[in-house]
């Protein structure tokens, strides 16, 4: 496949950037999107250019490192898929593909397509954990959890914290991420003691980090590689309402 990519190039956090067009020739349709950029980077290095910086780690779709907005859609055109699991056969020969970093004030660009997602860590630090010492892994039947709750908690816990929800949200809000973390802990008996303070503190951390407010536009869930449901935001709102009325 021969394609053109227009990639955001930015040398550093405080410098400006621009979209730069590159020709990529002879790409296998079975190559992943990241492998296509690897190939492009090899040609850039050979010609003495700076390779395109991008985040990647497991390349198995489970770590949440890769983070590119492809043709305006976070993680590209395939639903419920991370960029590393997106293959070039989803594109056509001769396509011009736009590649941009996550765009959010809370996720400043470090270089090219790499953004700083420390803001998510700040939200987790504000309450995305339980403080009880848990020791080694407990026996599975030590604390009974209804199957329905266990399944719902597991679904919420599949959030890999990639930040696609923020990248897609017209308001630049991280509400789906925060809601997933609150749901997966709040559905478990171990998460109950800190349930009220968790939602208040994590929302405060989210606001402090400079994310926008949620208007239920629903963009987040359509791009989420793990399909985290929008209903979890309703659960967060319900938890928040109960927490502030108890105060």
């Amino acid at each position: 496949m021969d394609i053109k990519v227009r990639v955001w190039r930015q040398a550093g956090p405080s410098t400006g950037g621009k979209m730069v067009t590159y020709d990529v020739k002879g790409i296998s349709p079975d190559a992943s999107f990241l492998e296509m950029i690897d190939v492009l980077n090899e040609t850039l290095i050979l010609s003495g250019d700076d390779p395109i910086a991008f985040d990647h780690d497991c390349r198995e779709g489970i770590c949440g490192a890769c983070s590119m907005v492809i043709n305006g859609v976070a993680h590209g055109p395939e639903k419920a898929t991370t960029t590393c699991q997106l293959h070039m056969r989803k594109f056509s020969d001769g396509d011009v593909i736009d590649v941009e970093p996550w765009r959010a004030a809370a996720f400043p660009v470090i270089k090219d397509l790499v953004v700083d997602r420390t803001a998510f860590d700040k939200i987790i630090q504000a309450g995305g954990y339980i403080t009880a010492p848990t020791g080694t892994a407990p026996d599975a039947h030590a604390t009974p959890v209804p199957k329905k709750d266990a399944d719902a908690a597991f679904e919420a816990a599949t959030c890999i914290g990639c930040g696609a929800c923020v990248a897609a949200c017209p308001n630049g809000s991280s509400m789906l991420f925060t809601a997933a973390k609150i749901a997966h802990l709040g559905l478990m008996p171990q998460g109950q003691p800190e349930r009220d303070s968790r939602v208040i503190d994590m929302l405060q951390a989210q606001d402090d980090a400079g994310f926008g407010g949620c208007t239920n536009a629903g963009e987040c869930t359509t791009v989420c590689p793990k399909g985290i449901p929008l209903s979890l935001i309703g659960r967060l709102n319900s938890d928040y309402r109960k927490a502030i009325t108890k105060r």
Partner: protein
Amino acid sequence: MAASGALLVLFLFAHAAGNLKIFVGLPDFDHYAEWLRELGTPLLPHAWFLWIQRVGLLVAIGLHIWAATALTIRAKKARPVKYAHRPKVQGSYAARTMRWGGVIIVLFVIYHILDLTTGHLNPEGGDSNPSARVVADFAPERWYVTLFYVVAVVAVGFHLRHGIWSAFRTLGQQTTKGERRAQAIALTLSVLLVAMYLSVPVAVLTGLVG
């Protein structure tokens, strides 16, 4: 947004129900308008109920616009650098047009009050009967006024379809069943309200009322 919006939806239904009185007869419609001013008497002086309601509505509208403005400002700050390539938002048309739709509705409400409440922009003027103002407003030769009302009322319908559904979510709706119910309620209420509001101008335009 949800709480102030809920108050405004309640008002919209009361207002729409009152409008339908015109189908009983023009004098009945005028009598309804007079009754609104007598409501609450003798406990309240003449027209006090109406003014209390107006103040309440202004507060709700003010809070609604304030919250919407705060969210818009936050959204602008949260994404200082725009995407070079951004397809249309995948959500519904109603969700996409909340902000501009809201601005159009505000402008319409201002026109609507100057037209049918105070009569400044009405061919009959302010000293006429409410029913005369309605009949003069939607006369066939003033089709553009009717058209503007239709556009504005449909805009309200779209605004409510996303707004009512979104309000349920803000107030904590989170189940699959509740989601279907919220969508059904939002759609039903929006369509019903649009139909109630459009029935009057259409009836005058076609000569059914007049």
